[in-house]
C-alpha cells in the first residue's frame, strides 16, 4: 500500500492539488482533503478492463479496427463528450480532422453563454490566486457556489493568510439569485453572506438593474424580480467601494434562453466598475471534467472553441448548428464517437446510429454501443494535463496506479492510424 500526496484533481475545476490518496493495488482511498466531488470520482472502482464489440469482450486491436471500420463509411460523424486530458484532446482533434467529424464538448451549451459574450464584447477576469489574496468582496450570481465547488471558500476566501489583507474574515460575500445550500460562505468570524434570491428567469432584469445602478442611472421601479432596488443599490455601492471585488457566475447554471446576455451584462458591469476608480474582476466558474481543456486545445489547434466541424476539410465553428444533440436529432449525423474519460455516469445520448464509446471504466448503457473501449482516467491511471476553471493554470495530473487501461490518446490515435 502506498500513499501519494499533493495529488491534483481534474474533477472539481478549482485545481485542488493537496489530496492525499492511498493506493492499494488498483483501489484508491482519499485520506486527506477529499470533498463531495473529488472523493467519489477518485475512489470509483475499475469494473470493465476489456473492450467490447457488440457486447462481447474483444482485444483492443479488434475494438480499434471495428471503430475504424464504422467510421470509414460515414459522411458526418460526431465526436461528443470531449471529456479528457490535453493529450486525449490532441488525439481527438487529429481523428476529427481526418474523419471530417464534428467535435462538440458535452458542456458547451452552458459554456456558450460565456463564449458568445466573450466573442461579442470581451471581459476583465481574474484567477484563483488573485481571489485568494486580493478579493475583498465576492458577488456570486446565480449559483450555489459551495454545491458547485465544495472547497472554494476554504481554499480561496477563508484562507488564513493572504498577501495583501490583514484579516480575510473581513471579506464580504453576497449571493444574488441563488441562496447557498450550506454554511461554507459564512466567514470564520460568523459573518453570514448577504443573500438576495430571485428566480433564474428574473436574473437578466436583476443584473441589468444592478449594472444601471453601478453606472448611476436612475431606476423607476422599487423592486425587480422580487428584490428591492434599494438592496441592489446597496450591492452597487459595495462594488464601487471595494478595492478588488470579484463577480463570479457559472455559465452552465444560467439555464435559460439567451443567458449570454446576462454574462455580457455582468462582464460589462465589471468593466464599468473599473472605470470608476477602483478594481473589479469577473471569475467564470467551470473547468470540470475537461471542459476548459477541450476548449483550450481546440482553440490552439483550430482557432475555435470545442463546437467545431471538420466536414469541409477545415475547421468551421458554429456554437448552435454544431450541437451534437441537434445533429443526432435531425438526421445529419451518421455515427457517434463518445469520449468521456472522467465520469462513468456521463453516458452518450441515446441514438440508433453506430456508436463508439471511449469511456471511463464502469459505464453502463441503456443500449450497448457497437464498440466500447474502457480507458484510464487522466490523473489516476496515467499522467496528463488538465485546465483549471480560470483557464490559466494547467495542472500536471499524476499517475496513481498501474491499471493497464490505455489512455484516451492511445485509443484515439490508434483509431486514427487505422483509418
Amino acid at each position, binding site marked *: 500500500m502506498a500513499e501519494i500526496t*499533493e495529488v491534483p484533481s481534474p474533477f472539481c475545476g478549482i485545481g485542488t492539488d493537496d489530496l492525499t490518496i492511498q493506493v492499494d493495488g488498483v483501489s484508491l482511498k482519499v485520506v486527506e482533503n477529499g470533498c463531495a466531488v473529488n472523493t467519489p470520482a477518485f475512489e470509483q472502482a475499475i469494473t470493465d478492463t476489456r473492450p467490447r464489440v457488440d457486447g462481447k469482450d474483444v482485444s483492443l486491436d479488434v475494438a480499434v479496427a471495428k471503430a475504424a471500420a464504422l467510421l470509414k463509411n460515414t459522411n458526418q460523424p460526431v465526436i461528443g463528450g470531449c471529456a479528457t486530458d490535453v493529450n486525449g484532446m490532441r488525439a481527438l482533434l487529429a481523428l476529427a480532422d481526418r474523419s471530417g467529424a464534428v467535435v462538440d464538448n458535452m458542456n458547451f451549451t452552458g459554456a456558450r453563454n460565456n463564449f458568445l459574450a466573450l466573442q461579442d464584447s470581451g471581459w476583465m*477576469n481574474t484567477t484563483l490566486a488573485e481571489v*485568494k489574496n486580493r478579493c475583498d468582496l465576492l458577488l456570486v450570481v446565480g449559483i450555489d457556489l459551495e454545491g458547485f465547488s465544495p472547497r472554494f471558500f476554504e481554499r480561496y476566501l477563508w484562507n488564513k493568510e493572504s498577501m495583501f489583507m490583514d484579516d480575510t474574515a473581513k471579506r464580504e460575500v453576497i449571493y444574488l439569485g441563488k441562496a447557498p445550500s450550506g454554511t461554507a460562505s459564512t466567514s470564520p468570524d460568523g459573518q453570514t453572506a448577504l443573500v438576495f434570491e430571485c428566480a433564474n428567469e428574473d436574473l437578466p432584469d436583476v443584473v441589468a438593474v444592478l449594472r444601471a445602478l453601478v453606472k448611476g442611472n436612475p431606476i423607476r421601479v422599487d423592486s425587480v424580480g422580487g428584490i428591492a432596488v434599494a438592496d441592489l443599490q446597496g450591492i452597487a455601492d459595495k462594488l464601487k467601494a471595494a478595492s478588488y471585488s470579484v463577480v463570479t457566475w457559472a455559465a452552465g447554471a444560467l439555464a435559460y434562453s439567451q443567458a449570454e446576455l446576462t454574462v455580457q451584462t455582468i462582464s460589462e458591469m465589471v468593466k464599468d466598475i473599473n472605470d470608476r476608480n477602483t478594481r473589479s474582476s469577473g471569475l467564470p466558474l467551470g473547468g470540470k471534467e475537461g471542459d476548459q481543456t477541450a476548449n483550450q486545445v481546440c482553440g490552439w489547434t483550430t482557432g475555435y472553441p470545442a463546437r467545431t466541424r471538420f466536414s469541409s476539410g477545415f475547421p468551421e465553428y458554429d456554437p448552435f448548428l454544431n450541437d451534437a444533440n441537434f445533429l443526432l436529432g435531425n438526421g445529419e449525423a451518421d455515427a457517434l464517437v463518445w469520449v468521456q474519460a472522467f465520469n462513468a455516469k456521463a453516458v452518450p445520448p441515446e441514438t440508433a446510429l453506430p456508436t463508439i464509446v471511449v469511456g471511463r471504466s464502469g459505464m453502463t448503457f441503456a443500449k450497448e454501443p457497437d464498440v466500447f473501449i474502457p480507458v484510464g482516467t487522466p490523473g489516476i491511471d496515467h499522467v496528463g494535463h488538465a485546465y483549471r476553471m480560470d483557464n490559466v493554470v*494547467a495542472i500536471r495530473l499524476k499517475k496513481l496506479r498501474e491499471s493497464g487501461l490505455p489512455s484516451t490518446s492511445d485509443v484515439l490515435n490508434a483509431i486514427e492510424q487505422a483509418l
Partner: protein
Amino acid sequence: MLIKLTGGAVYDPASGIDGAKQDIYIQDGRIVDKPVGDFKVDKEYDLKGKVVMSGAIDMHTHIGGGKGNIARTLLPEDHRADPVARTDITRSGCGHAMPSTFVTGYRYAEMGYTAGFEPAVLPVNARQAHMEMADIPILDKGGYVLLGSDDYLLRMLTAKKDQKAINDYVAFTMQAAKAIGVKVVNPGGISAFKFNQRKLELDEQNSHYGVTPREILKSLATAVKELGITHPLHVHGCNLGVPGNMNTTLDTIQGIGGLPMHLTHIQFHSYGTEGDFKFSSGAAAIAEAVNKNKNITIDVGQILFGQTVTASGDNMRQHANHKHASPNKWVTMDIECDAGCGVVPFKYKDKNFVNALQWAIGLETFLLVDDPWRIFLTTDHPNGAPFTSYPHLIRLLMDRSFRNDVLSTIHPEAQKMTTLASIEREYSLQEIAIMTRAGAARLIGLQDRGGLSAGNWADITVYTDNADRQLMFEKPDYVFKDGELVVVDGKVIHTKWGTTHVVKPEFDASLEKDLQKYFDRFLTMKLGNFKISDDEITEDGRGSLTVHPLKGDVA
C-alpha cells in the same frame, strides 16, 4: 545520407561569408565539411543563381501561451476569412492574425523560418506555452519567462534581499518554466494595475511594494548577467503607446548603467509629443542612443496596415488602449499574483494619422540604427502585424523606391512628420541575414544554429534571387530543417518536430524550502506541481529539450 547543395550564393554572416558561391554538405542533420577522399553524394541540389541562408529565427513572436489562445477565441470572424484545409501531410487550421498552432509552423516554414521564440511565458502559464508550442510543427522554439510583477520578486525587492537571492530566484524560475531568457513587461506595472494604479513611470513606486520599475530592471538585468544567461534581459518598457514615452525609453537606456539589455518592440516606445496632434517620432533620438550604447539591443515591433490583434502581458496599458479596440471587444486578466494579460484587436489604418506615423517610426528605427547585429526584424507578432507580413517588411527595408511609394499613400500629416523619405539606406541581403539569422542566434545564445559552417544543424533556406524582395522572401525554393527537406517552392512537403531550447542556470537548493512555504501560504498550487518536469516536454515522443551553455561554461 550525404546531401550536397551546389553552387549557391551563400550569405552566412556567422562565418563572414557575404554572397560567395559555395557548396554545402549535410549529413545526419548537420552541416559537415566536404568529405575527404572518395565519397558518394546521395542527393544533390543545383543552387546556381540561388541565395542560401540559414533558417530564419524569429526572436520575438507570440506563438504560445494563454493570451494567444484568448486572442484566437476572441476572433472567430478573422479565422473565417482564412481557413486552412488539411492535406495528406498537414493538419487543418486557420490563419491570418493569430493562426492555429499547426498553421503557425507551416507558414513560418514556408517563409524560410525554422525557429520562433515566445517572449512572454508567464511562470504559472508556462505549461500552456510549452503545450501550444509542442503543437507547432517544424519550428524549434523556446521562451523567455516573465518576471517583474510577480509578488515573490517584488517582496524580495521590498525586503532589500541581496543580489544573490534574486539570482537564485531567477534561475529557479527559468528552470521551473523551461526558459532560455528572462523578460520583464511594464516592470512592476502589471502588479500596480491590480492595486488600481493606471500608469507607472520609471521612477514611480508601486503603491504596495514601494519598488520602482528602475529598481526592478536593474536587479533583473544584473541577475541575468551574473547567471551567465546569454540573452540579455528582454524588456517591454514602461508607458507602452503613450505619446512622449521616448523620454522614458531614453532614461531606461541610460539608467541600466551599461548592463546588457534588450528593448523589445521599441517602435511602441519611441513617441514624442511634437506637432499639431501632439504625437511625433522619437526614432532618431532612440536610434542615436542605441548606436551609442553597445550594451543595448532592440527589436522593432513594426506595425503594418490591416487587421490584427494585440496580445500583451501589460494589462495596465492594454486596459488603457481598449478604447482603440477594433472590433470593439477586448479582454484583460489579472493572473495569479504573478502577471497579467490584455488582448485588444487593432486595425491599423494608413489613413489614420497615428497609425501612419507608427508605421514610419518603425521604419525610421530600422534605417537609423547602424549595427544590424543589434537590431532585429519583428512585428511583435501579432501585435504590430501577423508574422506573415515579414516578406513585405523586408521589401520596405531593401527597396527605397518601393518604400517611398508606400509612404506617399499614408496620411499626409504623418508624411510631414517623418524623415523617412530622405533616408537613403537600403538593407543588403547580408544585413537581412544578420538580423533574421546570425544575430538572432547570437542574441539568444543558440549553439549550432543560425550559421552555415560545419557543425551547425542544417537549418537552411534557399531563395531565388529576385529584385522584388517580397516575392523572393515569400516563397523559398527549399527549406531544410535539421537536414530534412520540409518546404519546396514555398509549400510544406514534409513535417517534423523541432526542439525546445532552454538554459539551466543553477540556484541554491535552499531557496526551494522557502518557496515551498510561500506557495503553501499564498498560492493555489503546490510548488512540486508548479515546476515543469522534463518529461512534460518529451513524453509524447515528439518534443525534445536542447540545453544551451551559459556564459563562462566550457563548451
